[in-house]
């Protein structure tokens, strides 16, 4: 049994992590590790970086091809895709958000990790509407880039 099957929380060992260079470019981290029948992320990717052996296989992102455009973030039905881009000591996290109120660029919000704990304050950089899903980019410290996966406004 993997720990996430009991806790619902992934650890870095469950994921294929990008290299430092890839992180600096900005890439999509697909936090979708189970075999479930779903593939909209493959269709959404404009550079064909995301692939799947078949519809049940977990998606694989080719970090070399991925441009970090975040098209997949607002499409994933499981809200399981996050774009991480490291910029020196800071990092930009792009995440899906389906709550009210919707923040605006410049707002300071709480940055939450995978168990919903507030880790630090984050500044909202960008808000894009994808249907009713908001795709929000926040700036946090680079040290917590692989932990921050939600915000509280």
């Amino acid at each position, binding site marked *: 049994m993997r720990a996430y099957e009991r806790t619902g929380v992934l650890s870095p060992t469950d994921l294929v992590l990008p290299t430092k260079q890839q992180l600096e470019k900005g890439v999509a981290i697909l936090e979708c590790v189970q*075999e479930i*029948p*779903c593939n909209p992320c493959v269709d959404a990717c404009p550079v064909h970086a995301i692939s799947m052996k*078949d519809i049940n296989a977990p998606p694989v992102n080719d970090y070399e091809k991925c441009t970090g455009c975040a098209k997949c973030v607002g499409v994933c039905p499981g809200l399981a895709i996050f774009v991480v881009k490291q910029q020196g000591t800071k990092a930009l996290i792009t995440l899906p958000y*389906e709550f009210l109120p919707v923040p605006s660029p410049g707002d300071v919000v709480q940055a939450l990790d995978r168990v919903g704990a507030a880790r630090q304050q984050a500044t909202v950089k960008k808000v894009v509407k994808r249907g009713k899903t908001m795709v929000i980019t926040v700036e946090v410290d680079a040290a917590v880039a692989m932990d921050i996966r939600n915000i509280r406004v």
Partner: protein
Amino acid sequence: MRIQSHPILDFQQRKKLAFSFNAQPLVGEQGDTIASALHAAGITTLTHSVRYDSPRGFFCGIGKCSSCLMRVNGIPNVRTCIAPLHEGIRVETQGTYAGLPDAEFQTHSKTTIRVDVLVVGAGPAGLCAAVEAASQGATVLLVDENPSVGGQLIKQTHKFFGSKKERAGTRGIHIATELEGELRGLEQQGHVRVMTEATVIGCYERRAEHHRFGVVQREQYTSYLYDVQCRAAIIACGAMENMVLFPGNDLPGVYGAGAVQTLMNVYGVKPGNRVLMVGAGNVGLIVSYQLLQAGIAVDRVVEAAPIIGGYHVHAAKLRRCGVPIHTSHSIKEVLGDDKVQGAVVVALDEHWRPKPGSEERITCDTICLAVGLTPSTRLLAQIGAHQSFIPEAGGTVAVHDQHMQTSIKGVYVAGDASGIEEASTAMIEGKIAGLAAAVSLGRTKNQKLLSQYHRDLEQLRAGPFGEKPRIAKTKITQLAEVPHARV
């Protein structure tokens, strides 16, 4: 308590409707059911236990459980959870015995309807069956008990999984709208007739390519009887939420998770302010997340199994909002005398037995049970379709072949009524049943499309989460090959 704002849904200001409850004047809204209007007014006790006289509220919210039966304009046993609210109606709680109606009865003679295919249930399976059969040239009558079509899709605010073909990435509520659009198009062309607020009360005659069903349609509080004569019937009447045993499980405030989803996402009414969710399958996880979206706190999710049964991505969404999920935990009892005021949860050992001393009291006003579903098969049983208990299908189901035909020629089954699964597979099963019926009636010969649907279904079931339905459907279709003694 009405939901004022919501990230996914728009609850517009609707026309106010005045009505009375036990002589007390109340106001509901256009589009409410009687039960949703009562909930919005804070009234959750709708009935009383016949045996213990203890208060009860509705459990299922979709017209199946009988915990919402009330007297409306003098008519007893009205299912208030699916009966639309009308201006000026008189709603009353019933005594131990419902009493005879004191309403005036109007007599109407029955009306005969002749169609190729009768489809019972307008959820994902039934809608797809009706659209498919009608597009292939069959004439179709689609009947549903609810005021609107769409079944449980109309409360699914999340995006669906699957591939483009299964409308992946589209929210369930929008899939319902799309399917209804196709249905209404066929209705305008005269291929389909849609009857809502109508119940198929039974099958009264069956011969080869000639089945007769009684259908009662309600218009406000007048009923009309129809004699429906069809060449084929597709039964897609869904499923019913399971109950678990613990003291206080019938108190107002204990709901099926789907009932709460209906109340908040269809009618815009909050069930309470703080919820304990029992069950971490996809329903429990998804409804918990939707409770948060409606501005309702979720104390925790308890799951008796040692692992989370639903998709990890749904669990992850909840966890990063700060909601704990406790596996190997269950509910022991409800706290409160006439409404839920809390609960005791308990840890379970490896044999699923409560661990003494591990009890924890929590404060909540709502308890949601998401502990599985049971196929609704009573109509199929009445028709006389051969049934079998298949644990992997969620209970007793009608044995059917791969084209969804039951042991009775011309009677098909589709969706959750044929074994518990997902809406996406229910839609394909509906298409298969609709197409197979049209083929058998000679309306089309499109075997190629039928094979395509079978491949689509196989693909959706190929992963580890498709294992249970895969086993269930293998058992069911194998049973269908065995000739059964006919009574």
